[in-house]
């Protein structure tokens, strides 16, 4: 393809990529997307020499005045759009930008027009960056980079003939040979440059200092609407969101294998008061948590007179999507929380909050401690609770004889609080069925409806039923809402938590163990999904990529940079160890193989040194591979150069032979220049040819200068002349 055609094509592609970016970022109304997309398709078709279309275009083309008029109309439209339609500068500006892009696409005549198009596309890709943080921006950005490198390079190459550029660019069918064509060498060079450019972009992106003055900052998109985490929650509020697959958070659990948790509970808010239809958190008074170190907050007390400290700690890193609640979720029971927060608050029930809902994705780490049931609670000692405690967690809305009798019946045989709680849990799990189709919202007494009539419901009903039944028999309990994560992403080692994982369970207070979590909800029994496992695996891989994109690109900040610097500062040693570990992992099969060789060859005393030997051998192989090119280059010098040298040496030898035929023999002690002098005296007509060939011979042979094809051609001509002279 000729340079000017390639330039036109890449310019259109550059514009197309930025247009796609804006469209995916929902920055364009449908009519404008169709108009711009249509314009791009038409221009591309014209580019690929569709003769009929070109003929048609020549008939319907506007004059320059017509295009100018369109620009003016577009500009007026921009003001109308800004004040009356969109009402904002950014959308109106983007709409106007697309109009300009369409106009420029149909007017690519001069180099100036190309520059305008590049500027428009750059602003468009910038605008799409302001509209989104999704993963799709990455491929769009990569495409833009490749198209940009190609375009700039071709624009520069076609700059050579300034006078002819307008003609060449305007009419690509004419004189395509004037500037040249895209050669395979140029093709690979351009793509290689794009690759290098991407690598350097990443390096600069991660190292460029993050300074955020914040004059104009905004969040991205709308917060995800969720329910079940406000001060008051109606029974059944979680039901509607149980069918929403939107991801609300991802939870990394570094030591998951130790816990082997298939079900991971993420605690949100707890409720203590039930009025028969809704739960309320009356312990919701929030206080600021003290900061142990910058960004690390300690959560003290869970309204528990006997906190347990014997459970395992669970470390989690949570990436929370922007939600419409300020609750910070964590595995029960959170003890420390760290993140980029100025303030973190907590209520008396141990729930953790931000002062206000975050408008963007946030990441934080939590250390939680599980509360196991202690053996002391398995006995049947009488229990006394403080009045303030019983007021909150033994409250029941009304005296229901049926519920009381049911609870008494279930727990009659049990003596300890834990056994009673366990009996109720078992009863609910085995005698009731899980169903999301449980319209209990309009019922007067939904709990009794659930327990005695319908006997189907979902987590809220089960948790409420168990909490009330426990309170009826004098055991403190509270309802907790949160998420139950079951979807493990093995590629990224984290739980994916979706809206549909919203869950409710209870916490039972045991005298010695403190608050203990119990879940009376039976398994749903609904199919997980009818999609293929491969597809689900692909989905998880994609989700992992999204997470990494978000973590390393969207969320990357000055704090991360400082952490990297600190890591490097803390030691070359740890970095070195990590690098060594990575290398060892990479080469472990080879190392094992090579490590076995000394074992096999030598005695067993050398066994521990096997890996070291292997490492040394691998290092030697790598070094050899790296230096082999240089060694080869020294052993076999440039073939082309040798070939050229040989040619001129052959020509010189032939010249000597011709002169010898004429009786002018060159002795071994005569230098080439002396021989020229002798030849001039004895055969003056041949002087020009002899001097010329000798000069080229000396330059190549002793001067180390490469001879060009032209110079070799001259030498051959001179030899031919010499031969003719000899014959005559």
């Amino acid at each position, binding site marked *: 393809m000729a340079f000017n055609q390639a330039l036109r094509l890449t310019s259109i592609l550059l514009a197309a990529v930025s247009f796609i970016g804006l469209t995916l970022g929902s920055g364009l109304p449908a009519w404008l997307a169709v108009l711009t997309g249509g314009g791009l398709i038409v221009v591309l078709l014209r580019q690929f020499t569709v003769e009929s279309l070109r003929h048609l275009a020549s008939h319907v083309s506007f004059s320059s005045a017509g295009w100018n008029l369109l620009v003016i109309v577009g500009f007026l439209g921009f003001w109308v759009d800004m004040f009356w339609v969109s009402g904002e500068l950014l959308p109106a500006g983007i709409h106007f930008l697309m109009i300009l892009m369409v106009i420029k696409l149909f007017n690519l005549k001069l180099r100036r027009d190309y520059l305008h198009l590049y500027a428009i596309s750059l602003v468009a890709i*910038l605008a799409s960056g302001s509209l989104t943080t999704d993963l799709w921006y990455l491929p769009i950005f990569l495409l833009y980079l490749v198209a940009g490198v190609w375009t700039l390079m071709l*624009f520069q190459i076609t700059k050579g003939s300034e006078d002819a550029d307008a003609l060449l660019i305007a009419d690509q069918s004419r004189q395509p040979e004037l500037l040249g064509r895209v050669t395979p060498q140029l093709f690979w060079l351009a793509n290689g440059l794009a690759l*290098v450019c991407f690598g350097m972009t990443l390096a600069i*992106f991660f190292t*460029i200092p993050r300074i955020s003055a*914040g004059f104009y900052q905004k969040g991205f998109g709308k917060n995800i609407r969720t329910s079940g985490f406000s001060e008051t929650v109606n029974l059944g509020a979680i039901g509607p969101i149980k069918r929403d697959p939107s991801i609300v958070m991802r939870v990394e659990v570094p030591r998951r294998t130790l816990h082997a948790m298939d079900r991971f509970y993420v605690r949100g808010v707890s409720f203590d008061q039930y009025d028969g239809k809704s739960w309320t958190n009356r312990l919701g008074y929030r206080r600021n948590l003290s900061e142990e170190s910058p960004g690390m907050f300690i959560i003290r007390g869970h309204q528990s007179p006997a906190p347990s400290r014997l459970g395992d700690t669970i470390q989690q890193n949570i990436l929370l999507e922007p939600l419409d609640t300020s609750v910070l979720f964590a595995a029960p029971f959170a003890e420390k929380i760290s993140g980029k927060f100025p303030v973190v608050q907590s209520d008396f029930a141990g729930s953790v909050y931000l002062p206000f809902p975050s408008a963007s994705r946030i990441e934080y780490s939590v250390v939680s401690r599980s509360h196991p049931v202690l053996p002391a609670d398995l006995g049947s000692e009488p229990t006394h609770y403080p009045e303030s405690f019983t007021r909150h967690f033994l409250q029941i809305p009304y005296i229901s004889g049926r519920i009381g009798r049911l609870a008494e019946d279930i727990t009659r045989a049990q003596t300890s609080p834990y056994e009673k709680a366990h009996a109720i849990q078992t009863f609910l799990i085995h005698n009731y069925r899980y169903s999301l189709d449980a319209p209990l919202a309009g019922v007067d007494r939904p709990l009794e409806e659930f327990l005695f009539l319908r006997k189907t419901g979902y987590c809220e009903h089960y948790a409420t039923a168990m909490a009330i039944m426990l309170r009826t028999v004098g055991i403190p309990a509270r309802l907790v809402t949160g998420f139950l994560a079951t979807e493990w992403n093995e590629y990224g080692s984290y739980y994916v938590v979706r809206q549909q994982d919203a869950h409710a369970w209870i916490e039972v207070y045991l005298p010695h163990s403190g608050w203990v979590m119990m879940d009376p909800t039976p398994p749903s029994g609904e199919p997980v999904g009818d999609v293929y496992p491969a597809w689900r695996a692909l989905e998880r891989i994609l989700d992992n990529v999204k997470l990494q994109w978000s973590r390393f690109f969207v969320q990357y*900040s000055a704090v991360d940079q400082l952490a990297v610097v600190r890591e490097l500062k803390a030691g070359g040693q740890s970095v070195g160890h990590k690098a060594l570990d990575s290398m060892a992992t990479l080469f472990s099969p080879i190392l094992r193989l090579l490590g076995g060789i000394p074992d096999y060859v030598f005695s067993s005393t050398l066994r521990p040194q096997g890996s070291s030997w292997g490492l040394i051998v691998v290092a030697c192989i790598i070094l050899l591979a790296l230096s082999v090119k240089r060694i080869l280059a020294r052993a076999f010098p440039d073939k082309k150069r040798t070939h050229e040298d040989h040619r001129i040496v052959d020509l010189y030898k032939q010249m000597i032979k011709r002169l010898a035929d004429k009786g002018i023999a060159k002795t071994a002690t005569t230098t080439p220049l002396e021989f020229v002098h002798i030849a001039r005296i004895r055969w003056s007509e041949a002087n020009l040819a002899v001097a010329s060939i000798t000069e080229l011979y000396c330059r190549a042979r002793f001067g180390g200068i490469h001879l060009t094809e032209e110079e070799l051609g001259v030498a051959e001509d001179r030899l031919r002349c010499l031969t003719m002279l000899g014959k005559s």
Partner: protein
Amino acid sequence: MPLQMPFFVRRWFLHRSTKVTSEGLQFLIFTLAIGIAAINTGNNLFYLLLAMMLSLILISGIVAEYSLRRLVLHRHLPDLIVVNQPVTATLVVKNRKSSLPSFSLTIFDVSDGRDLARGVTVHELPSGASRLVSYPFLATRRGRLRLDGVRVATEFPFGLFMKKAFYHVEGSVVVCPEIIPLDERLLQGLMSTGQEQNLHRRGHGSDLYNLRLYHAGDDSRSIHWPTTARTSQLTVRETEAEEQRRATIRLLTIAPVSHDVVFEQAVSLSASLVQHLAHQGYVIQLIVGADCSTFGHGDAHLHELLRMLALCQRSDPSGEFIARKKFEPDRREDEGGTEIVVQSWCGPEDHQPMRLTLLVDGQPVDGALHGL
């Protein structure tokens, strides 16, 4: 003691220079704008775009440097060129890089530290390949023209910066004075005032040179029959050669600074006379100041004389000359032929810088200035 930069740094700055192009300036402004937007919003995707643009700038510098590296240049100029007469100069550019091609190389001649654009561009030079480019070369002053080297510039790959590299390709060429068409009146003056001098020797011609006895091998057509009949001995007629004529051109180099322009005109006139007379078959001797050539003819002799004229320098008159009222050129011993003296200054009495004097055998000829 002034701070001395290391040698390689000085060499680098001498041999490399970078200039921002107009497109590059726009690009830098956009980069700055995106940088400000990134700082304002804290949006990492803006930082990503900013990083892309910065990497393009960096790659521009690196690739341009590689494009300009390891080039070999050879310039070929004619041995002798004439003022205001364009000649073709050729330049061989070879890319000695093992794998990387060079693109968009613009070539400048460097003379006296100035870049002289030649309109020569090599669009693509694959690794190991060479290109022969030629361009018109026009010298505007006589003398020895020294070319320091060649400056190769490229805007590759993105046209944001123009990077230049200097290559030492020293060359010098002798620029002859301008050859002007001689005025008809001047030529007539030469013919009439100057005595055409035939050198008396035998050769082809019509005039009788000698009669002698016939020798074996003589052309029978040259037998002079009347004398043969009168003397009864075969006698042949020898003719006098007509084409061999002699001329000595003297250019007086003594002239004050005020007569510099006239001196250059005198040099130009001398060169034109030399050229004209050489084409007329004259055997010419040139005396420029104290330098004196031999009599000779042929292209090689002509080039030698033109080179003398190209390199001659005006010398200021000394006190002795100024003391004389009138400056009389020294007459040399008569070696035969016409003596033409070109004089740009006639002595202290000469206050007319535009007056050029031409003496043919001591007689002034009008019209010397005509056409200059």
